[in-house]
C-alpha cells in the first residue's frame, strides 16, 4: 500500500519553479513594505487600546531547499555488494529511469529499515538472481497475476520489487525534475503534521 497515486495531482515542475520564482519576487517587494510599516513609530497607548489587532509580523522568507539524494552520496550498507549489484540490474530491468532516480540506494535504506519478512523476500530473491542468473526473470514477470504469492523466492521478490521500484522511481525528485508530457511523476499531497 505504499504507493501514492499521483496521477490526479500532477505538479508540472517547471511551471512550479516559475511560480516559486514569481512568488519570491512578490515576497521581497512585500517584505520591504512590511519593514517600512513596522518601522513607523506607534504610540504605546494606542497599542494598549487595540489589543485585538496583532502587531505586523515581518514575513518569513521562503527558502528553497534540496533533498539529500541530490546533494550527497548515500552509504549503502544493508545488502552485500553482490546483492546490491543484482538490485541495480533488477531496478534497471523493471522501471526505466530508476537508476537515475537513485532507487537501488533508496531501497537499500528502505528495505534495511523494513520488517524481517520483507528483508528476507529481497535477500532471497537477489541471492537467487546471483546464483542462477536473470534468465528465469522474464517468464516470472510475464505470468498472469493471481492473488496467491508465487511459491519460489525469485517470483515473490520480483512481484514485490515491481511495485516498489516503480513507486520509488516515480516519487523521486529526480524523476519529477525530468518529467515531461506523457510521463507522470513527482506528485504531491496534503501532508498531515503530528496532531497538536
Amino acid at each position, binding site marked *: 500500500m505504499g504507493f501514492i497515486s499521483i496521477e490526479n495531482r500532477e505538479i508540472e515542475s517547471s511551471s512550479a519553479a516559475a511560480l516559486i520564482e514569481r512568488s519570491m519576487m512578490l515576497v521581497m517587494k512585500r517584505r520591504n513594505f512590511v519593514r517600512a510599516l513596522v518601522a513607523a513609530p506607534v504610540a504605546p497607548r494606542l497599542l494598549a487600546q487595540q489589543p485585538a489587532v496583532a502587531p505586523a509580523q515581518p514575513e518569513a522568507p521562503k527558502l528553497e531547499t534540496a533533498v539529500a539524494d541530490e546533494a550527497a552520496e548515500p552509504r549503502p550498507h544493508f545488502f552485500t555488494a553482490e546483492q546490491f549489484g543484482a538490485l541495480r540490474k533488477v531496478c534497471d530491468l523493471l522501471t526505466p529511469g530508476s537508476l537515475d532516480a537513485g532507487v537501488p540506494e533508496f531501497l537499500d535504506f528502505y528495505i534495511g529499515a523494513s520488517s524481517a519478512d520483507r528483508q528476507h523476500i529481497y535477500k532471497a530473491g537477489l541471492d537467487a538472481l546471483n546464483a542462477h542468473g536473470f534468465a528465469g526473470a522474464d517468464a516470472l514477470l510475464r505470468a498472469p497475476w493471481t492473488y496467491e504469492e508465487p511459491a519460489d523466492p525469485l517470483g515473490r521478490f520480483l512481484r514485490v520489487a515491481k511495485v516498489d521500484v516503480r513507486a*520509488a522511481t516515480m516519487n523521486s525528485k529526480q524523476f519529477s525534475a525530468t518529467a515531461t508530457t506523457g510521463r507522470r511523476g513527482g506528485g504531491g499531497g496534503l501532508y498531515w503534521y503530528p496532531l497538536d
Partner: protein
Amino acid sequence: MPTKDYDVLIIGSGASGGMAAYALTKLGVKCLMLDAGPLVDFNRQRGPKPVYELPYRGLGEPGKLPHVVQANEFNANQWVDEKEVPYTHDPKTPFNWVRVRMIGGKSLFWARMSFRLSDYEFKGAEHDGYGENWPISYSDLAPFYDRVEPIFRVAGRKEGLKQLPDGVFLEDDSPWSESMNAFIAAAKKRDIPVTKMRRATGQGQFASSFNLLLPDAIETGNLAIVPNAVVRDITVDKNTGLVNGANFLDRHSKREMHAKARVVVVGASCLESTRILLNSKIANSSGALGHYLHDQTYITQGVQAIVPAAKDGKAPRGLMGGGGYVPRFVNLKKGNEEDFIRGYAFDFSTGGTPDPKYIPAYGAELEKALASYRGAGVSVTIMGEVLPRKENFVAIDKSVVDAWGIPALHIQCKYSDNEFKMAKHAMNTFDELCRSAGFEVLAKHDQMFPPGYSIHELGTCRMGSDPKTSVLNKWNQSHDIKNLFVVDGSSFVTGGYQNPTMTILSLSLRASEYLAEQMRTGNV
C-alpha cells in the same frame, strides 16, 4: 456556557455523539461533550508537500500503523497510533482496528456512502432463521432517516427497491456513460438492479458532525465541548445504582478529572464505547457486552477489467466515466437461496487506470501498456454482510494499557464459511457481468481484508427485547441502568451489506429524542 452541572454527559463527538448533542441541545437539555482528541485547525494541521520530500518517498514508514491499510505517508498522523492506544489479537486472526481521535471523529473522513437498512436486516431472522431480529422494524426508523438525510444532503436516485429503501434525496438525474449502460444492460438480463451511488454531499469539504451537527448544538447555548479528554470509565452512584458521570484524563498532561451529569450517553465509536463499559464493569448482566462483533467484508479491485473501445486514448466522448451501486440481489426470495445466507453489494466505477500489478509486463513494455489502458478501466469493491456471531468478541486485556494507563481491548474475530462462499459468488458474478457487457477481464480475486478494514465495526453492545441476551433496549438504553444510553454502531444487531453511518445517525437521533422526553416526564 461552561458550568459543573449538566443534564447529559456525551462521550464522543463523531456521528453518533454529534447527533445526540444536536438533538438534545435543541430540546433544551444541557450537555457536556468529552472527546479524546483535539479540535483540529485543518489549515494549520495539513499542508501541501511534494511526495519526494517525504522521508520514505511515499512508500510509508516501515512498521507504522501496520493495521491501517488506509494509511499512507501523507496522512499517517491523522489516524490513532496503535503504539499509543494498543489492542491485542491472536496473530493468526488479525483485526484491523482503524481509529480517529479528533472533534468530529471518523465522520471527518468517511466515504459518505449513505444507505438505509431494510426489513431484510431489521427482521433478518424472520427471513432466513439466522440470529436475532432487531427490536425495531424499518417503519420505526424511517421517520428518522427522513430527517437525517437532508442534514447530510444525501444525493441519490429513487428506485423503489425493497432491499434498499429510498431516502429523502437530492435527486441524482445525471446520465449514465455508455460503458455504464452496457453494464446495466448485462445486469438487467439477470434481474440485478444498478443504481447511482447514494452519497452525503455535506457542505464545503466536510459532511461531518464537525460542520453539520456541532455548530447548531453550540448555537443553542446548551453544549460545552472539552477536547483532549480521554475517558477512563463511567462512574456509578453506589446508593442508586445509576451512572453519574465519567473519569477522564487530559490527553497532554494526563491530569485526572471527573465530569458529573444526570445521564450518560456513550458514542465513542463501536469498540471504544464497549471498552469504556467493560472497564467500568457496568451494563453487562446479560453477558452479551463485547459479543456479536461484526462488520462488512471488503474486497477491493475484486475484478479489474478494461473497456476495449477505450484503449489507447480512443474512447469517444461519453463512453467512460461514472460508477454505480448494485445493492443486495441474492437470497431475497424464499425457495431461491444460494449456498450462503444474506447478501452483498458492488460499488464499481469506470474510467480509471488498472494498477500496474495486474499487468503481466515490466519495464518500458509495462509503461506502454499502462498508457494504453489509461482511463479504460472498470473496477469493483465488493462489500458483504458478516453474520453476527457470539464467538466474535472483544474483552479487556489486563496485561496491556494505553498511554493513559487505561486497559486495552483484546479482539477475537474471524470470518466464517458464509462470508467466504459469498465472496466467491460475488467475484464470479461481477466477472460474468463484465464479460457479458463486452469488457476484457484482466484479473479477479475473492480475498477479503481482515475484519475491521471496512471501518464499519458493529455490535458488541447490541439492542434486543430480551435483557438476558442483549445490552440495550429498543431505545438504545441500557437494560440494567436506565440513565445510560449507547448510541453508536455498537448497538447494531445485524449490519447488512450497507454502510452504516445513516443508520447510526438515525438511531442516535431517535434515542436522544426519547431520552429528552423521558427526562421531561421525570422517568430518567
